[in-house]
């Protein structure tokens, strides 16, 4: 019988299995064990969201709590990756990238190229991302386009527990620096997840829903939302194909092009801000490479060009909703406008 796991537990299992398989895998971050130096229980937190809870007892010595110095410990993870370890560093919220970005984008991302191919930096940087937690402007961002822009990084943002396990295992085994973004509002969602270890290759989108009328290209939290929109649209007689990119860099454009060739209509859905986004990236690629297949304008459904607001009333409007996604799709169903 199939076993279900939450995305949170899938991450825990992936880390557990990889640490068990390879003693050079070390996990470090703020309170990822918890209680270090404190008088109470050890394993007191397992990370701010409890994702790494319980691992320290299975792999003592492979998990390390860090001080609140992201440049130092993320940089240390990167340096250690060039010295024989395979570190998985947790950045509690991706919003904190601003205090440690240099180590990620000028160091880890560029070593191999700058050093003429003579470096390998097998580091994974895990971070939570996304809105919907009432966590306001500095704890709710996607920032996926920023990492995707940077050559030398691989960028992963899974939409479900099954993919999460397989992609995290791949990330740890991969020899390039990987930014692994976990949407906090997906943490508790469950899917079937096999117990055995498995890796999902990078650069392979998955077709979350097959359809023939319109192609939605998206990732992360917007995958379930797009699926929800598709159900609504189905009742209106619109048959939507939903492509889950899974990895943003590398990106699987072939799957996108194939789908658009069939449907002729494209809606790019992105929880990130709109300018220079994943949505615009995909829309532009199609306008360049698959223009001839398009029956009409592409649509983009994204967050507005604004920080994430705190108030539930505003945050609910901020996040692209299944309704707004459905509207985007309906918009593309008009005939070619020219």
């Amino acid at each position, binding site marked *: 019988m199939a076993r279900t796991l939450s995305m949170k537990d899938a991450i825990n299992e992936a880390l557990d299995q990889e640490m068990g398989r390879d003693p050079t895998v070390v996990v470090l971050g*703020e*309170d990822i064990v*918890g*209680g*270090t*130096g*404190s*008088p*109470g*229980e050890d394993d*007191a*937190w397992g990370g*701010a969201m409890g994702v790494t809870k319980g691992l320290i007892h299975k792999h003592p010595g492979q998990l390390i*709590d860090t*001080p*609140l*110095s992201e*440049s*130092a410990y993320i940089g240390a993870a990167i340096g250690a990756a060039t010295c024989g370890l395979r570190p998985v560093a947790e950045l509690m919220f991706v*919003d*904190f990238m*601003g*205090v440690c970005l240099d180590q990620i984008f000028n160091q880890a991302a560029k070593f191999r190229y700058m050093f003429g191919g003579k470096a390998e930096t097998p580091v994974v940087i895990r971070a939570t991302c996304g809105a919907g*937690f*009432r*966590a*306001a*402007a*500095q*704890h709710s961002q996607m920032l996926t386009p920023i990492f995707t822009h940077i050559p030398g990084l691989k960028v992963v943002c899974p939409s479900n527990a099954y993919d999460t396990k397989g992609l995290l295992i791949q990330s740890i085994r991969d020899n390039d620096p990987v930014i692994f973004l976990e949407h906090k509002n997906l943490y508790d969602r469950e899917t079937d997840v096999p117990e055995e270890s498995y890796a999902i290759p990078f650069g392979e989108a998955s077709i979350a829903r097959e359809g023939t009328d319109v192609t939605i290209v998206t990732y992360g939290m917007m995958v379930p939302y797009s699926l929800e929109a598709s159900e609504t649209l189905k009742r209106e007689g619109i048959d939507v194909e939903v492509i889950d990119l899974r990895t943003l860099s590398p990106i699987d454009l072939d799957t996108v092009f194939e789908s658009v060739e069939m449907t002729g209509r494209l809606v790019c859905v992105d929880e990130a801000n709109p300018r220079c986004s994943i949505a615009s990236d995909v829309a532009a690629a199609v306008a360049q490479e698959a223009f001839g297949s398009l029956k009409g304008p592409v649509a983009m459904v994204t967050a*507005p*060009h*604004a*920080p994430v*607001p*705190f*108030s*539930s*009333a*505003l945050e609910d*409007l*901020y996040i692209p909703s299944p309704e707004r996604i459905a509207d985007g799709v309906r918009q593309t169903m008009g005939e070619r406008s020219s």
Partner: protein
Amino acid sequence: MNNPFPLSREGLLTAYRRMRTIREFEERLHVEFATGDIAGFVHLYAGEEAAGVGIMMHLEDHDRIASTHRGHGHCIAKGVDVKAMMAEIYGKATGACAGKGGSMHIADLSRGMMGANGILGAGAPLICGAGLAAQKLGHDGVGITFFGDGASNQGTVLESMNLAAIWNLPVIFVVENNGYAESTSVDYAVASDSYVDRAAGFGMPGITVDGTDFFAVYEAAGEVIRRAREGGGPSLLECKMIRFYGHFEGDAQTYRAPGENEANRQHRDCLKIFTGKILEAGVVETGELAVIDSEVADLIEDALEGAKAAPLPSAAELTTDVYVTY
């Protein structure tokens, strides 16, 4: 009547009112949070009141503070409107930030409060800017940045200490050392034995005080603030203190020793210590404090009711105020 304290009777009562207001605000939030009515991350300042108030008693509106994720106490001590704060925490249109900021971003520049901050250590560079502005504009304002023991290891804080020292800025670096960063002990995370040593490494004087003792904080803060105002440059002030609740609301606190919270409440409650002293000295009477207590209770009750009843922001607000001009 003999007043052995460095504040007048009125000063003492003002300080008490502020500390009591913070305590009441936080205790009520703790209860309300448990009902599920309050969203997001809420970090309570209860137990730490003597530090914020002891320092802020020396400040005027043209003095600036840069606060932390645990900012409610700093806001109240600096004079931010309590009702606007409460409404903000409830995400309402009448909030201090029109509902857009929430607990972690309450600000009121008109009162010199440059914002709570969701990014550890981020206030330190900003307050250097406040100090620089005071210098260039030629007024005697000072800037105070608060950060915890955990945040004291952020590069921004450390860089700013050096910057403030070489520019001789009127800035105070206040370490609110409550012993924990989330669940992690300060003993593990901070390498030096003393923050005074760390200050010395950046060429500035440092003082450590018992942050549960309002008077100790008040006096030390008075000294470093006076020096800064007079052009004597920055200082570091470490306040050793107690956080009564978890890191944020919802924290099970298993990293604490058994009985730790109870012992703290009993022996190290800064508010009890303060009232004990002023009552014992006979400078104020129990009845006076009781009046303040009931006024404060009413204020917080009002603030809560007001916040609950207030309207949510309208949809149009979603995209306003991203820029001053578009």
